[in-house]
């Protein structure tokens, strides 16, 4: 490979899109040619720079999209009268051979047993108190609902067949807004969900009553790995701003959070420009510390403004 060919293939090489032979030729040329080696370094640099230009998707946009789609799909759902027939078909059984109604009844009984077990397990974990739509007509045969056994039902009646279904399909739980179990689900989701948009939605739920048990979940969310989650948690905590534990944690955020924008919001949170000056004065020491250590110019400037406002000298305090 000569210099010209190498220069043309810099990007394809970095993408790993050269074939085995070309890549070998490329490697051995680079090892010997300082000029091309430098060009490869430059190529690598703009690759990295362009990558940093790509943004993470805004989580609230994502969750809005998911909600829209879910709504559209719900509206599209056809009524499902033929599930049972489909089910029998997959088992290669013709309904006419059976007393269909009886069989449906035993299926429902059996499924009822399994879902009761599942729900029982969930109730233990959460302390119960929720209701489930628990709609049996949604149960469909398929990989997520494997059939475990088919047998004659107990009692010796040849017309009664029992089918055991291990239901692993997720449940839909319906809550009223004031149901305390709803809050427990939201708290668990803020702490556990891998999907940041779910954590965001849960914070949304908690923010309507943040001074109850949800508060500590929101405080924990201030240390979430996802920046959008931390932002949302901070604004959800606003009604609890006078709370000492909340203030302590927000001071931590101001001192340690990596996102300058969030640090800026932490200042507003602790020392709201519209609030009484006594509140702002309370944090003069903290803000003074920020002015001394803060690397971000905007954040520093905001602190200095607040400090000027409360007439505490930003230089000596």
């Amino acid at each position, binding site marked *: 490979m000569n210099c010209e060919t190498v220069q043309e293939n*810099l990007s394809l090489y970095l993408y790993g899109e050269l074939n085995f032979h070309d890549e070998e030729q490329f490697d051995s040329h680079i090892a010997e040619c300082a000029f091309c080696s430098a060009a490869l370094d430059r190529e690598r640099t703009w690759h990295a*720079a362009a990558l940093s230009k790509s943004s993470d998707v805004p989580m609230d946009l994502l969750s809005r999209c998911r909600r829209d789609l879910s709504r559209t799909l719900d509206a599209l759902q056809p009524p499902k009268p033929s599930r049972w027939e489909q089910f029998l078909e997959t088992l290669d059984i013709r309904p006419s051979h059976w007393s269909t109604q009886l069989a449906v009844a035993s299926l429902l009984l059996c499924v009822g047993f399994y879902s009761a077990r599942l729900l029982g397990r969930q109730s233990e974990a959460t302390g119960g108190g929720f209701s489930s739509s628990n709609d049996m007509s949604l149960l469909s045969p398929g990989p*997520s609902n494997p059939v475990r056994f088919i047998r004659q039902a107990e009692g010796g009646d040849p017309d009664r067949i029992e089918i055991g279904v291990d239901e692993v399909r997720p449940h839909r739980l319906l809550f009223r807004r004031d149901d305390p179990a709803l809050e427990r689900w939201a708290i668990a989701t803020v702490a556990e969900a891998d999907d940041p948009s779910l954590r965001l939605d849960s914070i949304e739920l908690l923010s309507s009553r943040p001074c109850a048990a949800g508060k500590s979940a929101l405080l924990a969310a201030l240390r979430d790995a996802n920046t959008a989650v931390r932002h949302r948690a901070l604004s959800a905590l606003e009604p609890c701003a006078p709370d000492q534990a909340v203030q302590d944690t927000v001071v931590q955020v101001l001192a340690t959070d990596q996102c300058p924008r969030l640090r800026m919001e932490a200042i507003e949170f602790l020392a709201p420009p519209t609030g009484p000056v006594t509140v702002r004065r309370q944090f003069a020491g903290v803000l003074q510390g920020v002015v001394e250590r803060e690397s971000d110019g905007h954040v520093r400037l905001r602190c200095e403004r607040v400090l000027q406002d409360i007439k505490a000298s930003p230089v000596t305090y």
Partner: protein
Amino acid sequence: MNTRAETIRSTDAVGRAAERADESALIRAAQQGNQEAFEQLVRNYDQSVLRLALNLLRSPEDARDIYQEAFLRVYKNLHTFRFDCSFNTWLYRIVSNLCLDQLRKRKVRKEESPSVSTREGEMDRFEFIAEERAGVDPQRSLMSAELQSKISEVLSSLTNRERLVFEMRHYQGMRLRAIGESLGTTEEAAKNCLFRATQKMRTALGAYA
């Protein structure tokens, strides 16, 4: 503070392998009308789809439309999916067609009325997220604003197809072969597109690097 992120990252590879194995099962379940399976399938891909739409169209509202339309088409046509290409390729065929259509429509609109709104206000949030990321990594924040704006400039000077191929390769990490399949063309044609895109980037950015 990053414990969660690190845990997720370390289990990512394992999780992804398991996801691939589960994917055909998921698709079959969705084809049989299992809505939960369909929603799971959506969740496996929707962040990448939204990112692609957002990067290409640079408008959250347009990206939102593409998201809806793409997954609705997937939903309506999933029964025609025959596993003769990867689901990823099939999905991106839908998404890239929608994005190209949208970009084409915009061009027409622009030619019809030069004063069409650029929806720049909508991009505020988008830019804000980008700025946030810059704050996360000190190395990135050192990257001169000039270089970043140059990159935007070059990206918007690419043709729609060059841009699409570049996004799919550079940001989505798709193989050229899959890109070709998604765009209904050959790997070679996708490569040529990428070739032109990277050449423009190199020419414009070489001096900054």
